[in-house]
């Protein structure tokens, strides 16, 4: 029994330390967006020692050393706990929006040294918490475990309500004949006092920085500052001579900032001191987490965010994003890949509609026309045309909630006019677009020659241009309409027909030659006549690899790009002095894939994968090296 108790205590203790290190429980339940990055995983991929000696690290450390007059040799000297998770979150209220960072600290004394002497002198102690307000809008607060950085911006329309504004002593200047009088300074004191009374401000000793009368600061300790003039100047043109109006305007703005600063102080202290309901109560947020992810992102329901930004009189259009739920994404980096996975929640109706639309697989016959070993890139999609046409009106009727009856009626009318089944026979809804090659092509252009007496004569010259070869295919069970269209083109002398192949030659409206072939229920369109001829004769030899086969068949939408194959075919000489650099950059890059497999549960998901080339240790180092190369290419 004792052993059990011991074990229980131990596990509880471990659990407790885990919570103490992870700051997610400090994020308010009502946050609209949360992003996080795991510094321990980051520094596993790129060790602290390596970072300190890297170009980026040196730049950062030199900058900090210069600014603070200190001597920073390593990132660990900043006092940040580098084996934990850093969080960012965004919260919106009716009056103020907060952008906040939560950073775990290992040594607060080291962190304080990051500030220069003047700033450090402004740090105030309040119990275990140290506070620094760098301006009316930014606030730093920290204790021994964490640093909390908040940036607040007041919602301008909050003060548009004259009753609310007057509560804080703010006046609407446009209605004042003589906008400036000496009572304005009294208003500041009134406001600050009323702000204090309204929000029940706890006693703090954050110092004011702004040139407000000393008495004000002493009377109301803890209200961090009427901010300095430059803050308000950012939002208004700098006048040559300060008029009474601009003076009054500045004071009103300063007043708003002082109110905001007071709100921020209360809000931030509450986060640090108290244990409030946290985002960890939100199942959608919890779904976004994965212990293997290096970083993660979560955003609340799109409709909630959208309607939060709508001005009141537009609320009737407020259903634009109805049915679209929260969005989340995760970033993974390992030795072989960089992956970003993303999801968006859908409500039952939307999920049902999209499930029907996505109930389609790519035509397997497409696969024999893919040459994986030389392919530059491809794009594929598979939607069910019939369901798409049927479901579209429903999707719209949700969006325009107020007009749902009209939209519904419109949808029925469209259904009546359209024969969804017949359309779905012509265009089944799947397509594959391949970029197969780059081919040099002779192109003519008009220029002039000048005779010995400099009289001008028109002449036509030729030059070589490299063009990508594209091969597109889509399924069609009924090609009559397409054939009819092409035959109309023949009768109008726009289209040539020979050996089953329809050809459109390049013109001003069409920069490339296009050859069309209808075969085996597939419509082929290609820029290379050889490709189309071989497909027609049945001699086209594809060599699809297993990885791409899986990618194409298991997903409703895919994209693939091979930088190496592009590099091999690229006309470096034609590209001028940047050709070499771009060629090197492409040669050092791995393949990139994008895929979406449609609906799982009530979530629609997509994934982006970048392969790490063999000569690179891991994804992070690979991206840092790519970034360095790309910077050189600029």
């Amino acid at each position: 029994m004792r052993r059990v108790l011991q074990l229980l205590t131990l596990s509880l203790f471990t659990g407790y330390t885990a919570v103490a290190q992870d700051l997610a429980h400090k994020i308010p339940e009502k946050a609209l967006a949360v992003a996080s990055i795991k510094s321990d995983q980051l520094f596993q991929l790129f060790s602290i020692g390596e970072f300190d000696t890297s170009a980026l690290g040196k730049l950062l450390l030199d900058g900090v050393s210069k600014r603070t007059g200190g001597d920073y040799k390593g990132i660990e000297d900043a006092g940040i706990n580098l084996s934990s998770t850093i969080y960012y979150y965004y919260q919106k209220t009716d009056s103020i929006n907060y952008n906040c960072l939560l950073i775990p600290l290992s040594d607060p004394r080291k962190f304080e040294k990051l500030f220069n002497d003047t700033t450090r002198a402004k740090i105030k102690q309040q119990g275990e918490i140290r506070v620094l307000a760098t301006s009316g809008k930014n606030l730093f607060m920290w204790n021994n475990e964490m640093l909390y950085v908040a940036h607040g911006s007041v919602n301008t329309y909050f003060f548009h309500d004259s009753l609310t504004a007057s509560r804080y002593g703010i006046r609407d200047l446009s209605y004042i004949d003589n906008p400036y009088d000496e009572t304005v300074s009294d208003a500041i004191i009134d406001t600050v006092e009323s702000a204090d009374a309204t929000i029940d401000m706890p006693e703090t000793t954050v110092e004011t920085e702004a040139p407000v009368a000393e008495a004000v600061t002493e009377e109301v300790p803890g209200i961090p500052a009427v901010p300095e003039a430059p803050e308000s100047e950012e939002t208004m043109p700098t006048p040559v001579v300060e008029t009474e109006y601009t003076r009054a305007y500045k004071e009103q703005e300063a007043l708003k900032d002082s109110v905001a600063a007071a709100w921020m102080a209360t809000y931030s202290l509450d986060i640090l001191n108290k244990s409030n309901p946290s985002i960890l109560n939100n199942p959608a947020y919890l779904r976004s987490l994965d212990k293997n992810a290096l970083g993660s992102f979560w955003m609340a329901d799109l409709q909630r965010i959208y309607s939060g930004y709508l001005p009141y009189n537009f609320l009737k259009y407020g259903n634009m994003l109805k049915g679209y739920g929260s969005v989340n994404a995760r970033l993974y980096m390992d030795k072989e890949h960089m992956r970003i996975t993303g999801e968006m929640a859908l409500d039952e109706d939307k999920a049902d509609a999209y499930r029907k639309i996505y109930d389609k697989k790519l035509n397997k016959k497409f696969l024999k026309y893919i040459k994986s070993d030389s392919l530059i890139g491809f794009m594929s999609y598979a939607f069910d045309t019939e369901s798409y046409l049927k479901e579209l009106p429903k999707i719209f009727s949700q969006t325009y909630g107020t007009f749902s009856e009209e939209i519904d009626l419109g949808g029925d009318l469209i259904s009546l006019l359209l024969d969804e089944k017949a359309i779905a026979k012509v265009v089944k809804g799947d397509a594959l677009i391949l970029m197969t090659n780059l081919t040099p092509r002779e192109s003519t252009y008009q220029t002039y020659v000048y005779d010995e007496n400099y009289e001008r004569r028109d002449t036509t010259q030729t030059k070589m241009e490299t063009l990508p070869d594209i091969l597109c295919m889509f399924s069609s069970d009924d090609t009559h309409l397409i054939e009819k269209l092409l035959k109309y083109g023949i009768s109008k002398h726009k289209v040539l027909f020979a050996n089953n192949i329809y050809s459109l030659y390049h013109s001003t409206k069409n920069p490339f030659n296009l050859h069309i072939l209808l075969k085996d229920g597939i419509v082929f369109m290609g820029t290379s006549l050889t490709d189309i001829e071989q497909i027609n004769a049945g001699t086209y030899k594809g060599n699809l690899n297993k990885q791409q086969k899986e990618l194409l068949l298991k997903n409703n939408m895919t994209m693939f790009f091979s930088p190496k194959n592009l590099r091999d075919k690229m006309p470096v000489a034609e590209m001028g002095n940047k050709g070499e650099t771009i060629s090197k950059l492409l040669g050092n890059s791995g393949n990139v894939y994008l895929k979406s497999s449609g609906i799982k549960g009530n979530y629609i998901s997509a994934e982006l994968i970048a392969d790490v080339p063999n000569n690179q240790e891991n994804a992070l180092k690979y991206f840092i090296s790519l970034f360095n190369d790309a910077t050189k290419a600029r």
Partner: protein
Amino acid sequence: MFKNKLFVILLLTISVFFTSCFEVIEEITMGKDGTGSMILTVNFSQSKNRIAAIMLMDSIHGYKVPGKQEIQQEIDKTVAQLSRMPGISNVKSTADFTNFVADIRFSFKDVSDVNHLAKALLEQYKVKSTNIPTYNYNKEEARFTRDYSYSNDVKVQFNQLKNRDKEIFSAAAYISILRFETTITSYSNKLARISKNQQAIIQRLAIPDLINGQANISNQVQLSK
């Protein structure tokens, strides 16, 4: 809509591979009495595939792509405006939308009329430029002058463009041809070349040199009396 986007992506990819260069040709034919004619030609034929691809898009690099009709309307507007200018007559224009070549030609009573015309056109298109050449013909002395002084403004404005937009000018050429009824006895610009019959002068330079102030197009041409 989705398919349209695919099309635009394809077009963008394609347009990357096309080269972009163009030439601007300015021809002035001077009579002994000071009257004459001028032809301005802009030839984008070498970039025609790129332009054809761009013209299928709505916008590129944040600029709206004008349609054929809009371009024609602008040209017509310019022709109408030029016809109203004092001393300018016989204004005609051609626009070839297959090769992307356009020209505008007109007669003038005095070559100095061209100076007013250039200024008015620049104002119409809201181009701030202080370094446009000015022309003068002294009948008594039989001397033709083109004054051009480089101003840093052009370079400053050019440098404000994004790199990808600057590249449009990298292979652009400017050609100026001056033709006279009498023979040329001397000319001041050593970068210009005189024709075999000694009645014409040509100068060809790269537009980037003009923008950077590395080339000068001033010239004083003395004609036999």
